């Protein structure tokens, strides 16, 4: 739902918004990797004293502290596995939030990511799908 300034409030609305047409959602681990590479490259180009500005530095500290995947390969494998539409049918934000929040069980996943309820409504198959997704979280994420 967009507020009166046209700014989208609800994450489910971004799929239809032109503002996010070509956007992809990243894991916090992806952001850590990108910012780390950026920092190293800029230190090479502009000198070892190069530092991020305050906003970017806050984002980098946050990404380092809350990064969930063991490695970039784990993040990629997790995304590839859960992007299998035939097997899971998750929306992009559901995959991203599963990877960032690492729920331990079905109940927690449904509470933290409300749109996942629609998969549970599919019945036993839907619940098993989420259980498999949670197993993937435990396989690839730091506990």
């Amino acid at each position: 739902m967009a507020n009166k300034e046209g700014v989208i409030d609800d994450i489910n609305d971004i799929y239809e918004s032109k503002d996010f047409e070509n956007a992809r959602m990243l894991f916090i681990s992806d952001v850590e990797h990108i910012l780390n590479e950026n920092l190293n490259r800029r230190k090479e180009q502009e000198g070892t004293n190069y530092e991020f500005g305050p906003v970017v530095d806050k984002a980098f500290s946050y990404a380092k502290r809350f990064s969930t995947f063991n490695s970039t390969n784990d993040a990629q494998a997790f995304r590839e596995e859960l992007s299998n539409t035939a097997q899971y049918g998750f929306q992009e934000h559901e995959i991203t939030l599963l990877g960032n929040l690492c729920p331990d069980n079905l109940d927690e996943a449904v509470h933290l990511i409300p749109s996942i309820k629609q998969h549970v409504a599919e019945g036993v198959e839907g619940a098993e799908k989420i259980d498999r997704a949670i197993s993937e979280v435990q396989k690839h994420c730091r506990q």
Partner: protein
Amino acid sequence: MERIVTLPPQHFGSGMRETLHKQLVREVEGTCSGKHGYIVSVTKITDSGKGRVQVGTGKATFHMKYQCVAFRPFKGEVVDCVVTQITKLGFFADAGPFAIFVSSSLIPEDYEFTSGDQGPCFISGDQDVAIVRNCEVRVKIVGIRVDATEIFGIGTIKEDYLGVLGGPET
């Protein structure tokens, strides 16, 4: 995303594209808009544009297209954050550049505010859990306010699976 970048004539010539890239990064990284949130990193320039010289100034404008990493919170989203300040009215926490306030009315009722030797904190009824400065908290965003330069959120920890995740980082 797109932006028009203006370059003065002393930068024309070899190395101009690199100067343009740096100028774009300087102008865009760290800024915030209501639509896209905080721009945290310019990752790729997809089109620098051809450049048009402005009459009178001699500067050239470039219509640049680029990809970036943006931090954009949404209402209803659950985020992990770090507590920065605690008062009896509630606590402030940061999710990266995004600040969230959790009012005491949206903290579970058994938590009590106390101000002791360790500083102000909220302690749970069973004394097992404490919300202290620099601890990690899982918060649900219930409201977002956008102004020209920042996005500010209101959060709650009064639901299942929300609250303290870990202690302060040492």
